[in-house]
């Protein structure tokens, strides 16, 4: 029942697109209700404006019939005369094909939702991907080191750190960082984090420093711990015993044999981490006033920018779905046994 690699990739991708479409359908169904409330309010405002201008030009109040006719026109303009499911479906198709339109309030200086998200995405990549790369490097290095001596002080410290940091909210750690480094030690100016925008590259790098530190502290323990567990598992395999028995130097056993064998799950984790980092951490960006995807979501939420929120949700869904698919595909490439299993199952 084996499946060629190419077919597997196509299969997984098609599967992912279907899932993504269904996710958008569900989100649209929920969002249409919110959009309705907003648009109905908008129509109400326009009717009032119409009545006022009519009274001014015609020197008499518009008749009820005229107002109703006008309302029908506006309703039609916004598509409110169509049934709920029809609108939800249209919204799904538009969102899915990146026709995101314009948000009613201005967010990040523009009404164009695509522009808003593009600006935010770049900034999130800058911050979180930088941090994630650091986390991965530190995490894997420490994980491999502690797998070499299970039970050592380093190993135990990492286990405890991993447990501690997974129970900490990242954004709370961020608040502590600001409190400590900005307010008490005064190493960075307070304006850097009390406002959203930065003037120049130097300031941007300064502004990045604390969130990056926060993300690294919050995540490296978990990475180190998982790497350690995978490595310890691999180190007990027969081929490592054989290598050792053959007299291969320990360094080579670890970095050559064991790490290579442990690569598939670790690479999967890297993919998840890197793509997951793009969705940022909504609240962490809010805490640090970092104008990325999270901050955009927050501003959209505050300003009731329904279309921006929908587009962001779609982006987050894309990132989640495709990191899963990419991880699966990569795994299948590195470890062909998976494909057979997957094919048999799916």
């Amino acid at each position, binding site marked *: 029942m084996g499946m060629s690699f190419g077919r597997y990739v196509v299969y997984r991708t098609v599967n*992912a697109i279907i*899932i*993504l479409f*269904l*996710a958008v359908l*569900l*989100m649209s169904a*929920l*969002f249409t*209700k*919110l959009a309705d409330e907003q648009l109905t309010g908008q129509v109400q405002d326009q009717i009032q404006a119409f009545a006022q201008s009519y009274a001014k030009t015609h020197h008499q109040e518009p008749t009820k019939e005229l107002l109703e006719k006008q309302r029908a026109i506006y309703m039609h303009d916004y598509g409110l005369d169509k049934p709920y499911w029809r609108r939800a479906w249209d919204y799904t198709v538009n969102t899915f094909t990146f026709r995101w339109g314009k948000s009613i309030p201005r967010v990040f200086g523009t009404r164009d939702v695509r522009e808003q998200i593009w600006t935010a995405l770049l900034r999130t990549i800058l911050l979180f991907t930088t941090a994630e790369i650091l986390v991965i490097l530190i995490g894997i290095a420490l994980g491999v080191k502690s797998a070499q001596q*299970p039970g050592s002080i380093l190993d135990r410290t990492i286990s405890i750190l991993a*447990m*501690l940091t*997974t*129970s*900490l*909210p990242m*954004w*709370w*750690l961020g*608040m*502590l960082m*600001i*409190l400590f480094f*900005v*307010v*008490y030690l005064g190493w960075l100016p*307070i304006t850097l*984090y*009390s406002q959203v925008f930065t003037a120049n590259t130097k300031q941007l790098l300064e502004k990045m420093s604390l969130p990056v530190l926060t993300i690294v502290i919050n995540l490296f323990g978990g990475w180190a711990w998982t790497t350690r*567990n995978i490595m*310890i598992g691999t180190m*007990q395999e027969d081929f490592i015993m054989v290598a050792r028995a053959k007299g291969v130097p320990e360094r080579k056993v670890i970095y050559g044999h064991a790490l290579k064998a442990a690569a598939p799950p670790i690479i999967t984790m890297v993919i998840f981490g890197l793509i997951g980092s793009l*969705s940022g951490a*909504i*609240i962490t960006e*809010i*805490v640090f006033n970092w104008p990325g995807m999270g901050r955009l*979501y*927050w501003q959209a*939420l505050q300003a009731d920018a329904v279309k921006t*929120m929908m587009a*962001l*949700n779609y982006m*987050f*869904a894309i*990132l*989640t*779905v495709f990191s*899963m698919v990419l991880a699966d595909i990569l795994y299948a490439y590195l470890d062909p046994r998976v494909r057979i299993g997957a094919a048999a*199952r*799916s």
Partner: protein
Amino acid sequence: MRWVDFKDSVKRFWSDYKHQKSGMLGIISLLFLIVIALAAPIITNPNVPQEWQPGGTAWLVNPKNAPPVWENYFTHESMASAVQFKPGQYHVVKSSKDGYNVYTITVDYNMNYQLPPVDIVLLNLKSNASLPKDNPVVKVQIIRPPEKGVKNNTLLLIDGVQFPSGSQIQIAGLQNTLNYLLYWLYENGVLKLNMPPQMVNPNSMQFLIMTNPQASKLVAALSADRRMQIVFGRITDNAGNPRSFNDVVNNPEPLKGNYKVRITITAPKEVNVDFSDFKIAIVGRAYGLLGTDQYGRPIALGLLWGTRVALAIGLAVSIASVLIGIFIGVASAYLGGWADEAIQRFTEFMMTLPVLPMLILLSLYLGGRIDLTQLVIILVIFGWMGTTKVARSMALQIKEQTYIEAARALGASTGRVIFKHIVPQLLPYAFASIALSVPGAILSEAGLSFLGLTSQNMITWGQMLNAANQNGATMNGYWWQIIPPGLAIAFVGLVFVLIGVSLDTVLNPRLKRS
């Protein structure tokens, strides 16, 4: 499973678990948390959740944004702590005069701090006056410790202020207080006015100040807090000469020593005045074990009550989602075929939905703020998939074992096979994953509350952090509003991780090797 077997296996499990140091630490901490959660209404008072809403009057007598009292040990500027005189802690002397009853209360306050109290609040005096003119009227005087060069040690703060039944009087902010204070400064030569003395009296102070641009600027800057720094501050220098008005306002120096606060309440004879709930609060700058937030709510109290919601959400969500997850996983494995296929596709679909954005979306859909029950249901909806995947793969292995075949051959129903033979084998895994999924649920709640999307009818650590964030606590350096709630979240998370990891080690023998 027979009762004896069950007892035996519990015993065996416990003797294994006992050796897990971190696991025992987790269990002890969990018991501690449960005791705290259950005892909260008893050791504090059951009305706290109602009183917790912002804008309530329950915390009026507390200082706002006050650090904990013990911060005094670490700073040069010791801050006055809050003192309340409740019935029984003061003595009411009653006399009568011209058809009026006069009640006098004198309390001692030892002002030994660099930064004096911010306010004096009188509250909960009850009377049965039916007309406003019959309301008791209050006079408050402060008898200051002797100070060289000061003629008049007794400072009048308010006089003739009406005290309707059940209301509060916050003295520092009243215009009445400011007038008397300025008059007293004038009497003692601190405030200089180019007026003949006979024209100056407390009631004309406001007008007189307006004629003096410099003084009027200084007075405009006299916030309630600054006024109290004058009341409890030095107004003469070491030689006994009056300090300048500018110095008194802008460089207040404390006058340490014993103060007496004298409160005189006058009411018509026919009006009945009830002191049974009357309190005199000297509002300090530091408060209790963990300080207060911007509404004067004690952080320690919130921390205590937050335990209830944290445990409730954490346990309800994790138990429900793990049990549902196991059930769906086992059903999927056992049914096989297209049912398995459909369940698996659906599970993958749910897994691909980004959790926090979906939670935000649902909370908007539900009308902005979600309450406890809705929150639990939503978190369960987004929390069962991981368990399902694992449970399915475990069930697939168990399904192939001979005793299942035997049971089926003997005519056992699907339900019986699932619940009697497969699910019990997954229970060890379930226990561990319940414990391990608690922190996630608590973190999700904290995140949503931080974004202001949960109902304010409950006290949660996430909402405390939300309040802190709205208050700009980080930028203002109000560490007591940030650190304790976060540590509490982390502590509960850690407790369950400790328990979960230990359960995993004991119950899943294949992990024992390392």
